[in-house]
């Protein structure tokens, strides 16, 4: 066999698999989004974007991503730095911190629902401490801020670890000598973080942020569990069009809009965190 063909033969199964189960459905979805049974049309996109719920769910999705991702970035950087500095018990702490990764997002939503609902842990704790007389419903249409905060907390709790794992691996790759040089040449711990860790962590930050931002635009189950219809998001609308309104074309259109947003933000992140030409990290 021609050895030059070997690499292509080896990647063939994966390529076929992806074509069959990703590319082909993707083409179908695109077809569905851009047609109304008789030819090319933008009607589906006009229908979904003109619906009164679209701007709200778009705004909510962005707002949530904007509130959650920076906090997760800061938290995961802090946690990664702390974990790296640990001499003993480092792996144990990492395992504990990454437990939420093993829990499905719906389960995560339900856990936080159990805390915030009227008969939940928070109410019984505050009642027990005598802070409130009777249980309150935190997650009602009367307290949209509380709903938002609950969703934020659940998202932060659930999905910070994925960034943490990537950043811990990234920090581990930075040679210790750079920090020693930084220390000798007068950089304070904070300056070492800003001038050495952050720039040298750029490739890992890229990966972590891209992954996290894409997931943030796809947020669904946690929101569904905690906010239900009180806090519409784009993915929830996709679900509603597909399974409640049985409008496959509209669902496909929203899915493509989410994809476009994800691609845009991926490009922005890659651009913002690019390594300067010639620099090797």
């Amino acid at each position, binding site marked *: 066999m021609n050895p030059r063909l070997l690499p292509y033969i080896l990647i063939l199964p994966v390529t076929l698999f992806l074509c069959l189960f990703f590319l082909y459905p993707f083409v179908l979805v695109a077809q569905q989004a851009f047609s109304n049974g008789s030819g090319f049309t933008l009607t589906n996109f006009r229908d979904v974007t003109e619906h009164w719920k679209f701007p709200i769910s778009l705004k909510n999705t962005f707002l949530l991503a904007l509130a959650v991702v920076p906090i997760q970035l800061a938290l995961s950087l802090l946690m990664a730095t702390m974990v790296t500095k640990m001499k003993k018990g480092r792996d144990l702490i990492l395992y504990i911190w990454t437990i939420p990764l093993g829990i499905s997002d719906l389960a995560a939503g339900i856990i936080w629902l159990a805390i915030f609902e009227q008969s939940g842990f928070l109410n019984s704790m505050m009642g027990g401490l005598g802070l409130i007389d009777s249980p309150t419903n935190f997650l009602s249409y009367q307290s949209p801020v509380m709903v938002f905060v609950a969703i934020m907390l659940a998202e932060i709790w659930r999905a910070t670890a994925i960034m943490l794992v990537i950043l811990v691996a990234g920090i581990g790759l930075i040679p210790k000598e750079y920090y020693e040089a930084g220390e000798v040449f007068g950089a304070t711990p904070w300056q070492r973080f800003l001038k050495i860790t952050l720039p040298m962590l750029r490739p890992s930050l890229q990966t972590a942020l891209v992954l996290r931002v894409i997931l943030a635009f796809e947020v669904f189950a946690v929101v569904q569990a905690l906010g239900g219809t009180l806090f519409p998001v784009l993915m929830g609308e996709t679900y509603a069009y597909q399974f409640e309104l049985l409008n496959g074309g509209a669902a496909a259109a929203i899915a493509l809009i989410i994809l476009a947003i994800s691609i845009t933000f991926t490009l922005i992140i890659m651009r913002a965190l690019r390594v300067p030409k010639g620099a*090797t990290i």
Partner: protein
Amino acid sequence: MAVIEIKNVAKRFGDYQALHDINLTIEDQEFMVLLGASGCGKSTLLRIICGLETASEGEVWIGGKRVDHLQPKDRGIAMVFQNYAVFPHLTVFENIGFGLRMQKMGNDEVKRRVERTAGLMHIEQLLDRYSGELSGGQRQRVAVARALAMEPDVILMDEPLSNLDALLRMEMRAELKGVLAESNTTAIYVTHDQVEAMSMADRISVMHEGKIVQAASPIEVYRNPAAEFVAGFIGNPPMNFLEATSHGGGKFSVAGHSFDGPDAANSNLQFAIRPEDMTLSEDGFPAVAKVVEPLGAHLLVTCELDGKLFRAILDSEMQVKPGQTLKLAPMPDRIRWFDPSTTLAVA
């Protein structure tokens, strides 16, 4: 401009004692080399002086000020690292100016100092490059320039040339010595390479198992090793040793020959002589040549004498064949004596 005093410094890592009670004074503008095999504690001592490591005991003084409780940046030092530690995400300019930027120095002054030190190290044409685009030698130059730009009182260097190839190392050795002499800084240089140490140092501290065995000028260390370890470590090949049996009154017999040794000694000693300090003479030791290595400049002959290996460096014109018996006479003023019980030199 600073004298460095190391007083009773000891360092323990758990149960392992890396340094034992080190005392050393390094004069202002002196070029001090810490020389020893790997694991002898020389890098640990350097790291204690620079503040990357804390001594378990003892004090470090730089320029009349006690510094061992200070952070590295407040000690008036700069350092050149073994693997350069040139930041890959910064240009050469920003690398050299790194320490100055940390001091919040003005742009004009940073530019002036970076350009001056880059000029000294002949890398002014590389200022816009990143370290990934540089060769090992160029990276080393950046690391030295970064240290010089700080205009420090003391420059510390941890095996700075060990990652370069032999030719480049020789070139950098001479250049580094020149640049440092002009900068008027005190320098401490860690190496395991004795040629580097001999050629660069004003004074060499030979270290062994966490102790300084001898601190003296290169020629003194070479000619008058203070201990058997130094005699066996410095010089390539090192000194030859033979058993010397005492007959009292400073008389010794060595491999069947009589020698006058140290008067005070009445016990058996070790007789030591450098391979090049031998002449061919009828009344010399009869040594049987085992291996003959023509090295161009001279001839290295490994012989057997008194049941031990005994090396002699002879003129390269000499015709010596394995199996031949040579008559090797040690030059009387080059003979050294060591006490086997203390391993120290006896005068």
